[in-house]
């Protein structure tokens, strides 16, 4: 692992240690009284330790492990998506194809760096294939709606998330061998933005942005979170191929996309009448609850880099 990567993970470790300490002090000040907000905060911090350790382990093992990790992430995300959006019996062939063919195929295309097919496989070919498979079932009830659900699930959970490991394939002059740091920077900035929006919202939040979609998102949380995460992104310019101003601007773009991603995904959850996508990550909900912002930020980040730097 590179010195930069080690420094970055040491920094994240220090940040988490501080968070754990704060969590511990808050819990101690309650003196055994139940406080769901603090319990949830501590559960979230503990889950962060695990998530950072898993990502760090994959980084240490190399590119193959990172691709495999995100393949698993896509699998869990797709499973949550399809579980929450009911399908009918005749969607079975389309769902089998989505899980057992589309998902592995997309990640194989990344492994073999076939960009030409990777970028259009799901939006063009799978978009046509899935409704064809569903049509064989002969069930016309809510056909368009069902076709859209399966397609959208694969777009969000497989296509969008696969752009994170796809960053490994970018050929950036004077940046060879450091592509893992692009993943680290993207994930860190977007996730930090989520955390800071949560923290700023809890501390200062008054005016709700979209009470019907997400009661916890406030103007204060949004502004504070986005600004602080963009600043952090700029301060970490030394691990990216960007200069300070480029890093700040790109951080602003990905955090904004992350915010809107969270908004869209919570609209789906509200429509289905649930609070979380799943129960996989203690304190956070499901895989998609944690990754909704990354889903929206990753493809745009990938293409910005591809057009401007590769």
């Amino acid at each position, binding site marked *: 692992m590179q010195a930069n990567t080690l420094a970055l993970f040491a920094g994240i470790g220090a940040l988490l240690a501080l968070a754990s300490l704060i969590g511990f002090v808050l819990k101690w000040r309650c003196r055994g009284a139940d406080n769901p907000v603090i319990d949830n905060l501590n559960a979230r911090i503990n889950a962060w330790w695990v998530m950072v350790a898993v990502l760090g382990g994959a980084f240490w093992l190399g590119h193959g492990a990172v691709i495999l990790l995100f393949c698993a992430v896509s699998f869990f995300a797709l499973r949550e998506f*399809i*579980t929450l959006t009911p399908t009918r019996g005749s969607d079975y062939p389309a769902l089998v194809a989505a899980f057992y063919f589309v998902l592995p195929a997309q990640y194989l295309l990344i492994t073999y760096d076939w960009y030409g097919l990777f970028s259009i496989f799901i939006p063009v070919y799978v978009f046509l294939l899935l409704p064809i498979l569903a049509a064989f079932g002969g069930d016309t009830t809510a056909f368009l709606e069902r076709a859209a659900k399966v397609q959208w699930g694969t777009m969000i959970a497989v296509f969008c998330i696969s752009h994170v490991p796809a960053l490994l394939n970018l050929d950036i002059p004077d940046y060879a061998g450091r592509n893992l740091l692009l993943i680290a920077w993207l994930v860190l900035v977007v996730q930090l933005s989520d955390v800071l929006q949560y923290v700023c919202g809890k501390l200062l939040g008054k005016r709700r942005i979209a009470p019907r979609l997400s009661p916890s998102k406030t103007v204060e949380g949004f502004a504070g979170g986005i600004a602080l995460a963009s600043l952090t992104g700029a301060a970490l310019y030394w691990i990216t191929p960007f200069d300070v101003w480029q890093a700040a601007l790109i951080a602003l773009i990905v955090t904004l996309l992350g915010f809107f991603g969270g908004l869209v995904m919570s609209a789906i959850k509200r429509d289905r009448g649930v609070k979380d996508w799943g129960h996989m990550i203690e304190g956070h909900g499901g895989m998609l609850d944690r990754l909704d912002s990354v889903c929206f930020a990753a493809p745009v980040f990938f293409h910005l880099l591809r057009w401007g730097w590769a």
Partner: protein
Amino acid sequence: MNDPQIPPPGEDLPAAPTPCSRPSRAQRLLAWPITGFARLLTGARSLWRGCAPEPKQRIYFANHCSHADFVLLWSSLPPALRARTRPVAGADYWQRDALRRFLIHRVFHGVLIDRELHDRHSNPLQPLLDALAGGDSLILFPEGTRNPGEGLLPFKSGLYRLARTCPQVELMPVWIANLNRVMPKGRVLPLPLLCTVTFGAPLSLGPGEGKEAFLARARETLLNLAMEAD
């Protein structure tokens, strides 16, 4: 996690023939990949709503929509309880070939019930009573057959007769959600979708409660659990 000590069966049980042997280490090793796969595929979540996973003698009764039902319910129990809990399954289906016979006897340690009643003079529930007398818990699907639709079919009378004969055994309603989408009838490849197994509060036969009333109440309890779990 759980105290592996299982209390001996009640004193007032009918005299039992030889209690069934416990599954061996090799059998448990065989069951492990199957339960592990079921849990991995469905992200199985057990919700203990009305009770805790205690080592009591129980009859778990659940909705039946897939062949994988008892595997998932069985997998949702802590290992110590799982070792003493046996699925009740139809002999006609499981005796059909060597592989199924091996699985149901050697791996799942199931109790087979003769749904077609070959011997008119024997009590079809006798194998279940024997297993209960041996101290085991049971997994039972009172609908009697797989239900491809929503809700529940009417219950067969077995649950009532067991409740009357063995009043010391707790009757646990269990709702298995979403598994019908994982493995729809007639399909081979399971879909990875999240499932929830919800355990409700134990039920017992009321004093003087008749068969029809009890079965309707048990069915109602299970349906309510489904609504809560949703």
